C-alpha cells in the first residue's frame, strides 16, 4: 500500500462518520455536493486529520480541495515537507 492509499483509507474512516447525507462515499466524491459536508464539517475533519497524522493542515488549503483524494494528496505533501 502506498502512503497515499494509507492516508486515503484513513480519511474514508473519518468521512464515514461525518457525512450527514450518507451519499455514496468514494475517493472522488465531491465533499460538499455529494457528501453533503458544509465548510464547518470539513474544517472539523481537518482537526481529526491533524491529530491523526500529527501535522498542521491550514484551513486555507481546503479552498482548493473538493474530494477525499485531493485532501489525501495535500496531506501527503505536508507530511513530506
Amino acid at each position, binding site marked *: 500500500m502506498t502512503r497515499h492509499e494509507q492516508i486515503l483509507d484513513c480519511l474514508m474512516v473519518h468521512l464515514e462518520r461525518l457525512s450527514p447525507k450518507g451519499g455514496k462515499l468514494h475517493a472522488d466524491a465531491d465533499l460538499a455536493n455529494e457528501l453533503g459536508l*458544509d465548510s*464547518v464539517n470539513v474544517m472539523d475533519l481537518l482537526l481529526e486529520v491533524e*491529530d491523526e497524522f500529527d501535522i498542521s493542515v491550514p484551513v*486555507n488549503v481546503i479552498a482548493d480541495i473538493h474530494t477525499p483524494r485531493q485532501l489525501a494528496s495535500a496531506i501527503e505533501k505536508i507530511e513530506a515537507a
Partner: protein
Amino acid sequence: MALFDKFKKLADARAALMATEPCPLGTRIDEVFSPTQGRIGDQEVILAGTNNYLGLTFNSDCIAAAHHALDAEGSGTTGSRLANGNYSGHQALEIELARFFERPSAIVFSTGYMANLGLIGTLVGPGDTVVLDADCHASIYDACRLAGVDVIRFRHNDPRDLDKRLGRLGDKIDSTLIIVEGIYSMLGDRAPLKEIVAVKRQHGGYLVVDEAHSMGVMGEHGRGLAEAEGVEADVDFVVGTFSKSLGAIGGFAVSHHRELDTVRLASRPYIFTASPSPATIASVRVALDIVANRPALRHQLWSNAERLYAGLAHAGYELGPQSGPVTAALLDSPQQAVAFWHALLEHGVYVNLVLPPATPGGRALVRVSVSAAHDTTQIDRIIEAFTTLKPMLSSSAKP
C-alpha cells in the same frame, strides 16, 4: 452557472423554514420603546435578543452628547481617518480608550467587524500563522482570509488542544497570532484565559482577545475577561466593539505594543472607509465613561443573568455551560426552533433564533440576552414564557 444560482440552496432552505410572518431571520422590529421593550407587528415584546448588555442605547447622557455633536459637527465626516475624517472627537476617544485599558495605544475603527479585519488582516500575512479557537466569530475568519495567512483551528475552549497545535509550529511561532474571544456570542461561554495564557507563555506567539461581548460586562473596571482573570499583561491585543455594551456602533483595538499605532498606516479597513459619525463618537465617549464609573450596571446585569439562567435551568432547558449575559437554550432541530421562536414571540418575548452552520456543534438554538436595563418582572416574564412553552419541545411534540 448564472450569478445568483449559487444562492438557490440558501434561499430554498430559508423559504422552507420561514413560511410564517414575522420572519425570524432579520425580524423587522417596528418600534423600539426602550432598551428592553419594542413592538413586532402588533405584538409588544420584551427585547431579549440584543447585545444591549448595559442598556445604554437610551441613556440620556449618551443621547444628549450625540445630539450636541450632531448640531455642532454635522451628520457625518464624509471621509477616512487618514484624510478628512479625523476629528478631535475620534482622537480623544482613542486617548480615552487607551487610558481605560491602561495600555499605550488604541485605534478606533468604523465597526467591530472592521476592527478585526483591520488589526488581524494587517498584522499578519502570507507565511505567518493564526491559531484560533474553532468557534471564533466570522469577522476573525474573514480577517485571516484577507491576510492570506495560514489558519490553524484548535478545539473550542481546549487549552491542551491549543498546546498541541502550537507545538507543531516550530520556528513559525514567532510570527503567530493566537486568537480567542472573551465571551462567545452564541453559547455565552467564556474562554479559559488563564490556561490559554499559560500555554502561550510556554510556546510564545502573540495573543489577541476579542472582548466584543465581555467589555463593560466583566472585570472590576469593565475591561473584560482578561481583567477579570488577571492576565491583561499577557494579552497583546484587545479587540472590541461599540455596538454591544456601549450601545452605539464602531470598533477598536488596543495594545501594550506602542507599535500598534503604525498599523493604521497600512490597514486597508481603517484607511479605505469613512470614520464613524461625530454623534456616534460622542455617545461612545460618554458610554465608556459610564462603563468605567458605574459598576452598579454590571452588577445588575449579572444579577439578571443569574436569575434567568437559574429559571431556565429549573424549567428543564439544556443551556450553555455558564450563566452570563448570553444564555443559549439548545433545541433538537431547526424546525422545532423556528416553531418555538414564534411561540415565544406570541408570549411577548423576542429572542434570537440561531441555526446551523452558525451554531457550535451544528445544533439549533435560541439565544437569550439580558441587559442591566431589564427589571426582575421582565426576567420573570421571560422565564414564565419558557416554562409555559416547554411541553411543545417534548419528543412526542416534535414536528
